[in-house]
């Protein structure tokens, strides 16, 4: 079985997939990749299923040696990457030969970079998924000496690239009201949207702290609220009224009140914001939120057709005749990039 042997690795690198939806009743939160869009991009670049597992790297990559031929793709926070010293394009798929060394450095922007293998990473399935969830006792971070084994890879194609949505600079987070919003007065909710936040330094895969000047955001009867289901994207106020945006690895229940829920399509932006980055919340109605998310879902669905062969200078290509220069595959799907409507 081909795979990547881990020779060096940053802290908190872990195998992630789309997590474990459907087990809230047992106290198991969904978990999964911090940047789900990056998972979909990697799957599109390798022409494979978006449910396969990839390596999530937090801020810094590692050094890997291929134990056999394999395909890779690189997505998420752009990081320095090279294969046997030759630099590799990010947001692209590449062929790796047995014995070659893949080196991935620090993130140039954003936080979470992803290394995808053709066939996915075939690590152990725990409670129905491969996603590591350390707090829940499911798996552990990747360590030196580990092998990341490839699953069966039916694909051959490499050398595809993708113009990725830039979600690494902070910005506006669209948020809908939920079942605890009216515990906060209309004035507090309005002030919340008028406040300039920065991503704080307290952040992990469970949630991200938002800091601002001025008063906190507290709810009526804040200390007597019954513990209630928690959803990824919920903005929870701690005892001193400081907001945390909860990510996919949030606990399943909690007693601190939630002012609203950030749209799923904007959660990658939260996860990828580096400390100190500017973020602000924009209230949208449920109908607006549903429409925005539907456009995002359509964009994700169209990702495979948005992947194009990487542009190379033909003068530099010694093996020009071996390349298939015209792809015969044209998607019937509308291309959302053409409409400019990439929400």
């Amino acid at each position, binding site marked *: 079985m081909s795979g990547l042997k881990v020779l060096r690795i940053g802290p908190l690198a872990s195998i992630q997939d789309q997590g474990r939806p459907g087990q809230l009743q047992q106290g198991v939160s969904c978990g999964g990749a911090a940047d789900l869009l990056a998972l979909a991009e990697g799957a599109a670049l390798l022409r494979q299923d978006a449910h396969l597992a990839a390596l999530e790297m937090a801020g810094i990559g590692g050094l890997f040696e291929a134990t056999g031929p394999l395909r890779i793709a690189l997505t998420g926070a752009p990081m320095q990457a090279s294969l046997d010293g030759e630099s590799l394009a990010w947001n692209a798929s590449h062929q790796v030969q047995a014995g070659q060394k893949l080196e991935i450095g620090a993130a140039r922007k954003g936080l979470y970079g992803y290394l995808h293998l053709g066939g996915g990473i075939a690590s152990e399935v725990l409670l129905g998924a491969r996603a590591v969830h350390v707090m829940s006792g499911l798996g552990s971070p990747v360590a030196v000496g580990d092998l990341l084994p490839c699953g069966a890879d039916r694909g051959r194609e490499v050398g595809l690239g993708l113009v990725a949505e830039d979600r690494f600079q902070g910005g506006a987070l669209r948020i809908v009201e939920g079942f605890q919003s009216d515990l906060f007065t209309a004035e507090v909710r309005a002030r919340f949207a008028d406040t300039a936040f920065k991503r704080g330094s307290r952040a992990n895969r469970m949630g991200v702290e938002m800091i601002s000047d001025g008063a906190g955001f507290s709810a009526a009867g804040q200390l007597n609220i019954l513990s209630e289901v928690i959803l990824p994207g919920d903005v929870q106020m701690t005892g001193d009224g400081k907001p945390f945006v909860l990510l996919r690895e949030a606990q399943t229940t909690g007693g601190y009140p939630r002012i609203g*829920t950030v749209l799923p399509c904007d959660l990658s932006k939260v996860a990828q914001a580096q400390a100190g980055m500017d973020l602000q919340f924009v209230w949208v109605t449920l109908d607006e939120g549903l429409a925005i998310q539907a456009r995002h879902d359509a964009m994700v669905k169209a990702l495979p057709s948005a992947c194009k062969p990487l542009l190379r200078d033909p003068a530099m290509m010694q093996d020009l005749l071996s390349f298939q220069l015209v792809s015969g595959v044209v998607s019937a799907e509308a291309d959302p990039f053409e409409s400019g409507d990439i929400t």
Partner: protein
Amino acid sequence: MTQSTSRFPIIRTAGLDGMLVTFSDALSESSNRATLAFGAAVKASGWSGVAEVSTSLASVFLRFDRTVLRHEALETLLWELLEQQDWQQAALPGGRRLWRVPTVFGTDLAPQLSEAADAAGMSETQAIESLGSARVRVLTIGFAPGQPYLGPLGAEWNLPRQTELTPQVPTGALVLAISQFVLFATTAPTGWRHVGQTGFRGFQLGRPEPIALRPGDEMIFTPVSRSDYDRFCLEDSHFGGASHEEIPA
């Protein structure tokens, strides 16, 4: 959708694809009974597009596929089901079990018993008598895999959470606050008071049933001596000598 919370049950949205049916804003035996029964009834309905149903202390959460089921349509289905009976009087779900769990109260294994007893206005002996004879129900499983919230305990145990977090309690710790126990399924920090220690593992990866408890199960934490506790843990590394029996429907 924002609605008045003065009348229960109420139906509200949760995120883009969630709906929450709430029976009360305070914990009570009848609202938890309603929650468990209504959650079971929603699951049994098998509505197309419903992806997940889970219950917490006094509410039922549904996650659904918004391309299959519209918010308005789901809300109508839920109201129709709510009107079918008085859910506060509903029978508890079938297949429940009563667990008896050997427990050391106090000592260095559970160092906050005396503090909790003081706060409840009891001696340690009275506290062990009270807590060790209480028969509590799994109200919900949450926070971490397999971790139950248990209750309700009597009003004398309506103790506030600590202001400071205890940095870590071990797996099997029985902690107490706001008339409830939590039986830790993992090691974690907590703002609740550590009053008892058990050898019970609520979450064991690799077993046929990794999550031992189900909402509606009941538990009694039987006081045992330290030496009996050690022996139970040695003989039964999974459940520390806990036994269980079916509760007749």
